[in-house]
């Protein structure tokens, strides 16, 4: 392979970035659409990392938003309450990046604390523990007055813009891809395929299950930090079961084990959410049908049922787009 040839993933990323940036600058995409694209990118991180835990390592986590909450509140507290940063000061932007990463590390630490005792559990039991964990995080945040309690953490400076979010998302995907297509990634995949055989091929299965949780939690923490600096608020209800379930649907819809699938599903479902919101508002205000936005969840539930009935493996199954596959030289 020619050494000067840029990796396909870098080219694809650059094309996406340039096109969106041009559309923003020419005013084709208004602020509303930019927010949706930013949200989509953040959900790409969340879906891809949940996929690492559920799809690639074969565990079952229902509390992914709990990790995002830790990242959001840690970084939000640092930028808003501790350092009182402003997006207009250049050095503050660098501190913001550091705060996001500290948030990720905080989430990873929580991931380790949760993962270590609970990964002896399997299947349904693990699902219940992680579901409980998500709710515990939400309840704790609800009761800490310093970060606003049930009112939420308000007045977070708007540091997240398209460029920052894009770069974080892009590098998350690159790093996850590198991990999955390495010796460590294959160890994780083998646990999903057959845990006993994996153990008897010399894989320390407990270690790799915990590692999946820790890495997944770290990136979910980054996503949480980016999200609260985009919306300028961190509120406990944003990180509840509803949001965790949405990410889970993205992982299943895209395909368990396929990062490509998670990217496509995160975009499609984020746009669908907005589309449904507009549609429901129209039905209520113009047609006069008395329904609220909570009906989006009904649509998701139906979507999940349809996926399970007609395309169990999701959109991509376990396949990856060629862009995300690292070519090996010694074939």
């Amino acid at each position, binding site marked *: 392979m020619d050494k000067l040839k840029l990796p396909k993933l870098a080219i694809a990323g650059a094309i996406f970035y340039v096109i969106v940036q041009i559309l923003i600058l020419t005013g084709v995409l208004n602020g509303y659409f930019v927010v949706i694209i930013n949200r989509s990118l953040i959900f790409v991180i969340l879906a891809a990392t949940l996929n690492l835990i559920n799809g690639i390592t074969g565990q079952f986590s229902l509390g992914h938003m709990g990790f995002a909450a830790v990242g959001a509140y840690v970084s939000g507290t640092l930028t808003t309450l501790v350092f009182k940063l402003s997006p207009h000061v250049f050095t503050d932007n660098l501190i913001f990046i550091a705060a996001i990463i500290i948030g990720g590390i905080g989430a990873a630490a929580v991931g380790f604390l949760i993962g270590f005792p609970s990964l002896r559990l399997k299947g349904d039991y693990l699902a219940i523990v992680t579901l409980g964990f998500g709710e515990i995080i939400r309840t704790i945040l609800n009761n800490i007055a310093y970060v606003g309690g049930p009112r939420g953490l308000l007045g977070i400076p708007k540091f997240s813009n398209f460029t920052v979010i894009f770069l974080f998302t892009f590098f998350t995907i690159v790093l996850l891809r590198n991990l999955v297509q390495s010796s*460590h990634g294959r160890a994780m995949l083998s646990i999903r*395929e057959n845990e006993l055989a994996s153990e008897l*091929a010399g894989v320390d299965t407990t270690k790799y299950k915990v590692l999946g949780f820790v890495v997944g939690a770290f990136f979910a923490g980054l996503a949480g930090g980016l999200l609260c600096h985009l919306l300028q608020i961190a509120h406990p209800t944003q990180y509840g079961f509803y949001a965790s379930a949405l990410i889970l649907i993205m992982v299943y819809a895209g395909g368990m084990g396929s990062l490509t699938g998670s990217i496509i599903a995160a975009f499609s479902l984020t746009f669908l959410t907005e589309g449904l919101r507009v549609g429901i508002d129209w039905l209520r205000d113009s047609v006069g049908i008395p329904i609220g936005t909570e009906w989006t969840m009904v649509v998701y539930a139906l979507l999940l049922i349809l996926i399970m009935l007609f395309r169990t493996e999701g959109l991509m199954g376990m396949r990856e787009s060629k862009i995300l596959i690292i070519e090996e030289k*010694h074939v």
Partner: protein
Amino acid sequence: MSAPVLSIQNMSHYFGGLKAVSDFTFEVPEGVIYGLIGPNGSGKTTTFNLVTGIYTPTQGKILFEGDDIVGMKPFKIVQKGIARTFQNLRIFSALSVVDNIRVARHFTTKSGIFSSFLRLPSFLKEEAAVRDEVMELIKLMNLEHRANDIAKNLPYGELRRLEVARALATKPKLMLLDEPAAGMNPKETEDLMKLVRRVRDEFKVTIFLIEHHMKFVTGICERVKVIDFGETIAEGKPEDVVKDVKVLEAYLGRKAVVC
């Protein structure tokens, strides 16, 4: 005969009140092909599960190259040098043939998680080295044409070879084969016998196998232990053991022997 690779001393295992394995004492000498035979439910697979650390024996010692491995986690035992295959194949079916085998080389790699994230030169070098080694193994197992195929698309005979290749990739000193000839036709069984002998000779691996297939056992094993209901009923050379009255009773029933 040289020193024993595996030495089992007074090993017993109970499932509740059921004696699955009762007071086993035996040695597997280095470099032999050792067979463990017995009717269904006689405790063969339990013995394998005890040696590989899936179960912990209720009593007794299991010495591997002189070290007691009782209580060690299965993956540690594999890393010490005991590999196994399964009676019902346990293949990573969604992974390619190369990846199936590479998983078993994983524990020997030193690259940390960060060099994997960043694909540092040291990581790339190690990955290439592992891949080359695994390709060698694939060639030896005559699976070259299948290297990049997804494992679930392979026919049964090739899956058996893949499982052997995966076990060999852990560089074992002792390999446990759980009914390797199960479901094979005479031709495949013949090939398998050659393969097992080759593995022993080329990789210097001691073989400890469970088998029902008498022709296979008498054809390949150099030493055989016969068990029934968790008790040893005979031990020795295969040609002597198959003539043992107790063995015939266990397999065919008392009446058949009397007639």
